[in-house]
């Protein structure tokens, strides 16, 4: 069984890129457009890992992480934040919200996949 990933990003380009990269790497990918969308899909998707952007409309990445951690659906799922922000403060904020780790955009396929394998496996 392959690893199931819920990837959340408001940018269509990013979503498409994640879909292609992760599918090629052999993962199952479900896409969501923002925090609310991701949270709504969470019970159906039951992901092994969540990848989320931080800066999004409606509900941002921090809100999503906090909601997932506080909810009953998958409170312990590894969550990696995808962000162009390499600033330490944002990483710290994400960590405090409950993020498992981070990936800095732009990423290459190899780094994306190896980071995912660091925190989740099947």
């Amino acid at each position, binding site marked *: 069984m392959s690893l199931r990933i819920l990837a959340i990003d408001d940018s*269509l380009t990013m979503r498409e890129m994640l879909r292609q990269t992760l599918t090629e790497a052999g993962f199952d990918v479900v896409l969501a457009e923002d925090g609310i969308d991701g949270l709504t899909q969470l019970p159906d998707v039951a992901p092994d890992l969540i990848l989320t952007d931080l800066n999004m409309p409606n509900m941002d990445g921090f809100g999503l992480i906090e909601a*997932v*951690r506080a909810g009953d659906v998958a409170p312990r799922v590894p969550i990696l934040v995808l962000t*162009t922000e390499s600033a330490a403060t944002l990483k710290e904020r994400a960590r405090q919200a409950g993020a*498992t780790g*981070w990936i*800095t955009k732009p990423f290459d396929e190899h780094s994306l996949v190896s980071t995912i394998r*660091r925190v989740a496996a099947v």
Partner: protein
Amino acid sequence: MAGAIDLKDIFFVEAEELLSALEEGLRAIQTGAQEADTVNAVFRAVHSIKGGAGAFDLKPLVNFAHRFETVLDALRGGQLQPEPALLGALLHSSDHLADMINASRNGTETDPELDQRVIVALEAQAGMGGHKEEEAFVFEPLALDGPFGMDLSALPLTSLLRKVTLTFRPHSGAFASGHDPAFLLRDLCGTDEVEVELDQSALPVPGGFDPGQSYLGWTVTLQTERSDREILAIFDFIEGNCDLTLEAEAETPPDPDGPLPETSLAPSAPVVVAAAPVAAPPKPVAPPKSPDAPAAASPQPASSAPSASTGPRPTIRVDIDRVDRLVDILGELVIHQAMLTEAIEQSPGFGSVEVDRSLDQLRQLSRQIQESVMAIRAQPVKPLFDRMHRIVREASMAAGKSARLVTEGESTEVDKTIIERLADPLTHMIRNSVDHGLEKPARRDEIGKPTEGVVKLSAAHRSGRIVITVQDDGAGIDRDKVRQIAIEKGLVPPNAELSPQEIDALLFLPGFSTATEVSALSGRGVGMDVVRSEIAGLGGRVGIASVRGQGTTLTISLPLTLAVLDGMVFEAAGQTLVLPVSTIIETLRPDIMMRHTLGRTDSVLDVRGRCLPLIDVGAALGFRRTLKPGEGEIVVVVERGDDGAIALMVDGIRDQRQVVIKGLEANYGQIPGIAAATVLGDGSVALIVDPSDLAAIGPNPSRPNVFLAAE
């Protein structure tokens, strides 16, 4: 990466949407119409462009967007106030960003010096100057195959194993944040020789076990080539959520940061540690909720789906070729339906109620399909209108004028093809309005007008057509000057008696330009004649109206679609022709008394006291010279643009039906009086007449008789 080209296409499509969101947001801030989220949305737009550009390694774009974003971030954070000068600079930067994206789409780059000038001007305006080149944003590379930020040259080239001892004890917060110690230990061990010691002394007595808590610790002793930094990098995600110590033999060559005999990453996140004791399986460690994320409080995400009610309706993106193919097939369907109807009407079975009803049903269904397909192609004019704000900004700056664009009816939907082909003529018309229509601010002040001129762009559906107007509140057309120029250029004879409307229409003559000095923008060799022919190419027409001192209004009137129209099939001079039903006002069989002759050849028809130019369609199109008895006895009154109606003499009216428009321009160029052609039910070709163009030809054409020659 496979499919990278497609992704780039997606990026450019998305970038376009982001750019218009950016510009719209900035304009909303400028006019004070912003909402709570506007500044955030503006920031996000630039941020997303930066992210996408980074993915495709478009460095100048990333740099520009990053510096742009930094200013927006300050605006978002309240360190900057949205003052007019700053907004001007922001809009200018947004325009330049659009140019940069456009350039990369075309595989080129904008002038780096210009990029620099624009962004430096913005930073200066924001009081954030002094941004040095070497501070230019560089994405932090993430090299996960090696350790974070490690300088590969610092690695020992020879195989030198050393002993490293590491103790690791995760906090319970680590589980709550999705960490799994097993993966960390796996990565830590790697392919090295290891000894692992488990410390389970903290395990509670049976019965007191809480699966949300962390009770275990490990001591791992490695024989490794890896540096301390590489090893610690494995734990960077969990840093703060664990106790970690490292003891190691000195590295050779020494670590550039000096030896790290003991490193502790432990007690740096008290918040998470403090949260640990409340952990319990059904409600595990809950990190502190920030008050500005109310949705985070929802324990049942599945039941709360606000996006379904408030978000945009779901859409799909379809390749335009597929829709075009549908339109083509639909055109064939309409033709075959007409053929079928004709065949049945001529067959002996005709007259049965069932057949009649079925035919009627078929007609209605194909019309519904047509409307649905057209609705797919229809798009609001908003993106097109949005682009015009920039034109006004640039044109007014270049002409030393102050102007603002006001738009109306932005949600009016128009066929996509029409929208695309409207961009150029509309741009020219808007430039023209700013350049020639509006007065300079000083002059406006003198005559008591607000110094800022207004160009109003509006769209509306009107009697089966789309009407787009460009209205300025400028000086209006100086008719004496126009007339004088036309005479000087030999466009009209010096003694010509011209009505105000006729003088206005002179502006559309090829090569006409009233600007005494050629301005930077209008002096591009494109005149209003080009605008007119471009609009005519869309089956539309341009009208002009002007009031001295109050302004000029240009009106474009367009068909709703380029594919199908409701036509009235009629006969003239033995030809089967089609008139667009939307232009027909009435049909009548006039009395001889209603007809009056003007001069030698022209005549008018008195329709209830209103004298309309009377035109024989057969003669105007060159099918005949004079009318024979029994010909031209039926008159169709049609409107021609904004300036009244004309009466067309025809020989007979056949019926009214939907016809599929087949363009002639590709093969025959523009034919005066003819808009397009169509295929009738019997398979014959009929020409679709353009009434307003016919009026321009007049009743007595003095050109070679192309149609008679062709026969």
